[in-house]
């Protein structure tokens, strides 16, 4: 196996707020050049981890190395080569987007100012860069946040829920932008609560739940462990349809929220639908429920640990 340089190396990182353990012994290794996802619902500890990475808060224990530097030994120099934003990027609303970038470029030192035009162009803010940020939409601020990060010509780009709060077109554009940046060889560490986003963009993922890591590994490995596809079914007689499902040992059907939720291989679902019609039960709707990976994500992060499928292995192979 070839040696892989690490952009982020966290070992047993813990952060407590009083009795609340926000991050519990988190270990994570992000290799250079990869697109890495940190996934979890709100309150999982993703942002707390990123705040520690940026030195905004101090860990109570553990070590964190970023591009070969630590906050303890190097102070703010630990952020050399690192850029990104935490939660939604914030700027001075009374200044234009360009003026904000000019100010930040001044903090970054020589060379950053010369990248303003190209950064604005890359995030498609040309023509709006002279407007005050106070009048920007949420999506424009997100893109300005990416532009502000790019001024630093980073080797590691950290984005905390970059598509959060965006409309569908904004989400599409943001994902395309992240993919473009990743394709340029940049290491991207992306936090999200959206399984689709991570699946689409990332190579490896750490899934967190209330401060704990519940999965660490490749997306492919996670996909292998995902449960079968679920369907949402409504019929003319849900009680009878539920009773009929019990005749098939490979079919799991539960009644929830005024519909039936069936989980099985596609062929079993097909047979079940056919049997409903044969039994005189009218099929009123059939739709894909949650995607398999999303279903696994919910299982990992929302249900009690004993309900996670027995086939699930918490650590996937990365290498």
């Amino acid at each position: 196996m070839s040696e892989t340089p690490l952009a982020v190396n966290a070992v047993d990182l813990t952060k407590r707020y009083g009795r609340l353990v926000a991050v519990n012994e988190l270990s994570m290794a992000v290799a250079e050049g990869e697109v890495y996802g940190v996934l979890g619902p709100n309150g999982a500890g993703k942002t707390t981890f990123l705040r520690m990475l940026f030195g905004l808060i101090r860990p109570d224990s553990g070590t964190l190395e970023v591009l070969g530097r630590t906050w303890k030994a190097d102070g703010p120099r630990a952020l050399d080569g690192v850029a990104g934003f935490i939660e939604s990027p914030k700027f001075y609303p009374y200044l234009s987007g360009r003026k904000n970038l000019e100010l930040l470029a001044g903090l970054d030192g020589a060379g950053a100012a010369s990248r303003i035009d190209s950064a604005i162009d890359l995030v498609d803010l040309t023509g709006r860069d002279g407007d005050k940020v106070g009048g920007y939409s949420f999506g424009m601020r997100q893109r300005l946040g990416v532009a502000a990060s790019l001024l630093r010509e980073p080797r590691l780009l950290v984005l905390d829920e970059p598509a959060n709060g965006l409309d569908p077109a904004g989400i599409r554009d943001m994902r395309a932008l992240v993919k473009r940046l990743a394709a340029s060889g940049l290491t991207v560490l992306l936090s999200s609560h959206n399984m689709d986003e991570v699946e689409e963009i990332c190579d490896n993922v750490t899934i967190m739940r209330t401060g704990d890591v519940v999965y660490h590994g490749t997306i492919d490995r996670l996909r292998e462990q995902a449960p079968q596809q679920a369907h949402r079914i409504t019929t003319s007689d849900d009680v009878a349809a539920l009773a009929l499902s019990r005749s098939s040992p490979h079919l799991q059907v539960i009644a929830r929220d005024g519909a039936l939720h069936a989980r099985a291989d596609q062929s079993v679902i097909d047979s079940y639908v056919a049997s409903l019609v044969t039994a005189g039960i009218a099929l009123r709707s059939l739709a894909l429920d949650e995607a398999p990976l999303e279903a696994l994500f919910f299982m990992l992060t929302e249900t009690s640990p004993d309900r996670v499928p027995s086939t699930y292995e918490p650590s996937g192979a990365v290498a």
Partner: protein
Amino acid sequence: MTTTITTPARHVVLRPSHQRRGGMGAALQWEVRKLASQARTRYTLLICLIAPIAIVAVINSQQRPPKDNIYGRYVHESGYAMPLLVLGFAAQWVFPLLTSIVAGDIFASEDQHGTWKTILTRSVSRSSIFWAKTLASIGFAVLTLTVFAVSTIASSLLIVGMQPLQGLGGQLIPPATALALITASWALALAPLLGFTGLAILLSVKSRNPSVGIVAPLIIGFVMQLAGSLGSVDLLRRFFLTTPFESWHGLLVEHRFYGVIEQGLLVSVGWLVVCLAIAYTSLRRRDITGG
């Protein structure tokens, strides 16, 4: 459920990245450029320039001078009396307000706009940011006092005239000496003004609320003045930040005394150092979880 982390085998740590950083000078430049782009800062300086001219013109046009105030009775007799009247008045609330407009807002506005994380994720240390903001606040305080003083003195001399000034001991002070004394009197206001700057910075850091940072020093100044006017707190009064604003009285008597000036300087420096030390420690230790 147990969790095991699989770490990729044979990882090597990246060579540290070398990036040129702005440092303290860049942070100061950043803060000054930010302040210069704020309308409030520019308007404050404009007011410091124009308001004294209007005040001098209005007082000079009044038939009855404000005799209840120090040097109020002499404002029609000498252009050197007017700046001392304005100085006594401004020390009550104008100076604390002028410095708080920037110093009380300069840290808290980062909380208000949520921009702490924007600037602290750029290889710039909290120390650099703190001292840049502090120096910018001090610079603004010095600038406002200078503009206010020059405008007041110049407009007074032009509107009222350059007659000799009557000292607090009744002695007559020739114009050249009077100009030097009123300039020195205004310069002495700088020390407590910087004390208020420190206080406003502390309140800005601790409260994280620009309104508190701007208004609270003003209120504290009023409370000190009220408490200082009570006869039973003479010892305590020495340590009030408002007391050094009156230290110029020692220059206007026939036999000048400097003890009160030295004490005023010490008290002002004490307030400045203590406030900045607490603010600095607080900012350095703070977890940036919101802004």
